[in-house]
């Protein structure tokens, strides 16, 4: 597992869990562009969707799921803004999961990628080539102070 952390300009960065050193989000470009996903949705639309998700109330899905922590959603919005600023291809979709976390999902013929934002300052990028039973995992960290 690699870790990605905050750059000087962005709030989010790649964190290396072994060294605890961070590197810029622009290193994600190659990882996310690798499968040449062609999202029809732009980052501003995804950010609008996140703002809508931020207003979810308990039982928003009809299955009893609790609303999301607004700070977590704000963290995801900051991440989307950073990814957009770095020129990372937009995700195909952003959605709230069943366990009060948020997912950005990229679909392409070569593989699937997702970023799960699980707290306001922690996220993971998982890359799954088509048919693979193994994911490459990168940790993202947000500087909050």
């Amino acid at each position, binding site marked *: 597992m690699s870790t990605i952390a905050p750059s000087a300009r962005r709030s989010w960065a790649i964190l290396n869990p072994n060294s605890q050193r961070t590197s810029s989000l622009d290193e994600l470009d190659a990882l996310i562009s690798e499968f040449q996903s062609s999202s029809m949705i732009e980052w501003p639309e995804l950010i609008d969707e996140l703002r809508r998700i931020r207003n979810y109330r308990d039982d928003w899905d009809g*299955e009893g799921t609790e609303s999301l922590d607004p700070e977590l959603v704000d963290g995801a919005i900051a991440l989307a803004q950073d990814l957009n600023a770095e020129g990372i291809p937009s995700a195909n979709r952003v959605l709230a999961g069943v366990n009060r976390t948020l997912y950005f999902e990229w679909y392409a013929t070569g593989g699937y990628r997702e970023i799960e934002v699980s707290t306001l300052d922690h996220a993971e990028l*998982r890359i799954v080539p088509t048919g693979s039973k193994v994911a490459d995992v990168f940790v993202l960290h947000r500087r909050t102070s």
Partner: protein
Amino acid sequence: MKAESEPIADDEWLLRRVPLQYWDSPRAFEPRLLGKNVRDPDISGISFYRESCLTHPEDILAPVPPEKWGNNGIVRIPMALVIELGLSAQLEPDARVKGHVVIPELRAEIHAANKSHLGPLLVILAATARENVVRRPNSIGTVD
């Protein structure tokens, strides 16, 4: 039609209900943790229903209030794939619908601790589901 007490055969198909918001996403197979108001947490594993035990696939919508049926799709997964992925299915009778089984390897607490290992399996299940749609949520399309 099989009795739900019969062992699960490798050539059976398993049905899963997928709410609209998780349609066509690996989230459709993500185990749900126990929450204060969560109605059906996946404590023992995510739920499927054996198609061979049902009169009609839409029988699995029975636990859902009728006014919400349109928000749910149904996909089918071959038991052979479940086995190929190193998973299993256990009988867990449910008075509401016949043929209820759970996949114990995909229960909430295990998934939460092993997302990097189990995540790819959810991706494969989602890709298989995409090719085996029984019923789409109404707001996406009509019943196949």
